[in-house]
């Protein structure tokens, strides 16, 4: 294990080029680096604080055919992530201290990324009884985020109780906003395309009505609420209004909701089937603007791996979800940075600092790139244009909607406490 190295000449936060030295997993002044320190030529590369994903599906325990904590960790490292939050919709569901501790220890054992388990809000995700969130918060996994993701916490009373309950341990409820009654049998966004294709629609109001309800509930009981995968104009407007009212709401957007529209469904290729669905161009535009102006606080991947038999079938029979850990940076660069809507420093804010703050892991992650801080670092090559080829991904699953598309850049090195968890082949030599 290399104990000392210098990242030379990278543009820190995409701004001025500078050398950054790391010794024993901590950033030190360059002058203090030993002469034996390995030198990495990072000319033209961008250095960001290690990325933090608030929304990842690792599938283990239960669906190891789609992904394991190990393959998911590797995929995360390749994508530039140093911390991920594993959703609770596993089998068994992560609704007890036992399951979350299992996931947490396995993540530590593999050691490629810090895995923070998310606890279920309700037992078995059934939406009927609150799970023992206190026990999960006090476990070794130190759970702070709670979500029934996959499913909406639909009963307003259960949602209210959950919002109130998590206050005692500074937790936050992450809501998958979807009115279950309005979306029975839904296959794609309800609009002009669904009318033509003969697929049951998922109307925007089914998301917006829950977002509205939950920001008002959070305001009423004085709690935080985090809205997952925001996808519509209306949802962005509601969150903006809620923030203006001082309500403690945060929101995330996925790379695919920043990039793809419901027109992709015309091919009936289930790679484009996701929940919430891909929406209209107006919705995508609103989500981009919301991310740029801070209404939407972070980018989260909602990395949802599925085995090929769950995607290589009829649209109606296919599972919802797309992989995202290994393509997120490229999408965000393409849509937000290269278009001028955001800077790399903004990217650091929405993909590292703010997610860590929401996840209550700021004492370890999302730290500034400064002397004394732990060396969780992501080195990005913004000129590494490449064609997305899911067969080369570290994820066990291949369900990426970007296959064949060209992305402008990618992570070329990821460091977790100074240990390189991913190195592009051209940098491997330095650490040999």
């Amino acid at each position, binding site marked *: 294990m290399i104990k000392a190295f210098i990242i030379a000449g990278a543009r820190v936060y995409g701004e001025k080029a500078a050398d950054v030295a790391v010794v024993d997993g901590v950033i030190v002044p360059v002058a203090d680096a030993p002469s034996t320190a390995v030198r990495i030529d990072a000319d033209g590369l961008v250095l960001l604080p290690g990325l933090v994903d608030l929304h990842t599906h690792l599938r283990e325990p239960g669906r190891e055919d789609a992904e394991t904590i190990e393959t998911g960790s590797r995929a995360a490292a390749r994508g530039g992530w140093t911390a991920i939050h594993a959703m609770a919709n596993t089998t068994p569901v992560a609704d007890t201290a036992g399951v979350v501790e299992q996931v947490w220890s396995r993540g530590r054992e593999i050691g490629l990324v810090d895995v923070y388990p998310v606890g279920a809000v309700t037992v078995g995700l059934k939406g009927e009884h609150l799970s023992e969130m206190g026990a999960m918060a006090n476990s070794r996994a130190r759970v702070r985020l709670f979500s029934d993701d996959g499913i909406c916490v639909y009963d307003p009373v259960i949602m209210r109780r959950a919002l109130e309950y998590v206050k005692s341990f500074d937790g936050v409820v992450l809501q998958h906003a979807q009115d279950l009654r309005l979306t029975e049998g839904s296959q794609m966004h309800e609009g*002009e395309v669904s009318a033509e294709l003969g697929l049951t629609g998922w109307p925007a109001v089914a998301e917006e009505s829950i977002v509205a309800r939950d920001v008002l509930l959070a305001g009423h009981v004085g709690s935080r609420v985090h809205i997952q995968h925001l996808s519509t104009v209306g949802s962005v407007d509601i969150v903006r209004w809620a923030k203006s009212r001082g309500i403690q709401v945060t929101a995330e957007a996925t790379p695919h909701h920043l990039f793809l529209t419901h027109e992709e469904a015309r091919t009936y290729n289930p790679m484009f089937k996701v929940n919430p669905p891909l929406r209209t161009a107006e919705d995508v535009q609103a989500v981009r603007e919301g991310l740029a102006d801070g209404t939407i606080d972070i980018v989260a991947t909602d990395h949802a791996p599925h085995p090929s038999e769950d995607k290589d079938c009829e*649209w*109606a029979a296919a599972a919802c979800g797309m992989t995202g850990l290994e393509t997120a940076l490229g999408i965000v660069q393409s849509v937000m940075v290269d278009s001028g809507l955001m800077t790399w420093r903004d990217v650091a804010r929405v993909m590292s600092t703010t997610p860590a703050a929401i996840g209550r892991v700021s004492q370890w992650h999302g730290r500034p790139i400064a002397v004394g801080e732990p060396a969780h670092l992501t080195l990005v090559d913004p000129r590494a244009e490449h064609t997305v080829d899911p067969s080369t991904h570290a994820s066990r699953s291949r369900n990426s909607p970007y296959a064949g598309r060209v992305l402008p850049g990618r992570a070329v090195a990821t460091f977790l406490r100074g240990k390189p968890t991913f190195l592009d082949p051209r940098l491997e030599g330095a650490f040999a």
Partner: protein
Amino acid sequence: MKHLLGTQDLSREEAVLILDTATQMAATQEREIRKLPTLRGKTVVNLFFEDSTRTRISFEAAAKRLSADVINFSAKGSSVSKGESLKDTALTLQAMGADAVVIRHWASGAADQLAHGGWLHGSVLNAGDGTHQHPTQALLDAYTMRRHLVDGPDGKGLDGLHVAIVGDILHSRVARSNVHLLTTLGAKVTLVAPPTLIPVGIGPWPVAVVHGLDAALDGPEIDAVMMLRVQRERMTGGGTAFFPSPQEYTRLFGLDGQRMARLPEHAIIMHPGPMNRGLEISAEAADSPRSVIVEQVANGVAVRMAALYLLLSGEEHM
């Protein structure tokens, strides 16, 4: 024409060609020997994931009259119990040497996926996919209308005709296929349905929408009225039903003798079948001399013969 997946892809020339070819095919069905050797040696597979004896028999008759070999493949499975995958089924058919696959499936888009999935080399003919498209139904409907409503029909479309389609538009592949085809052939379309059964995203469709059959009859003269089958399960009231009760539906949208009398004399009454006598259409209307419902079935064979001929003969299909 490599595939027939939907009417939205048909140009006016292609649509008229199919109708004209169907006319010739229908003529051969008047002979004593109704069989032609044209598709001898070709294999047509009827791949039905959804029960439909009438449509399957129609396609089987069409293929056999052209001397093609017919294989019937009844696949199991639904969105709940997946059964053998579409991909595996397609690979099996390819190995069996299917020149054309006629597919009827419960999932919208299944025919498109079969045609473009890269598993099959042959032609794909959509016999109805979910609530998406049913092109041969629309073609036989257009053929029937042309026979009754257009003088010297060969080479012509349906220009200037006004067609009313009545019923559950939201869930109807017949309606979707007809809207495209009728518009391509120059007809005007009015959809008649309660608001709950009209798709939200219907804005760009080139149609008029009316929420009552009486109101539609008050409007511009109708040349053909197409009654769609309404599913009782959708009308059971309460919960997620689209309509309070079957009785209220019949009162507001059913075609009975009184409403039939308000149609112009030349107007024809159509229905893709099977009918719910007494619900969307009364027995009086269904059995009246203006009803061409039985003829639609016979025309179905000729239209399907035309479709198979145009898909399977010709060097571009080798």
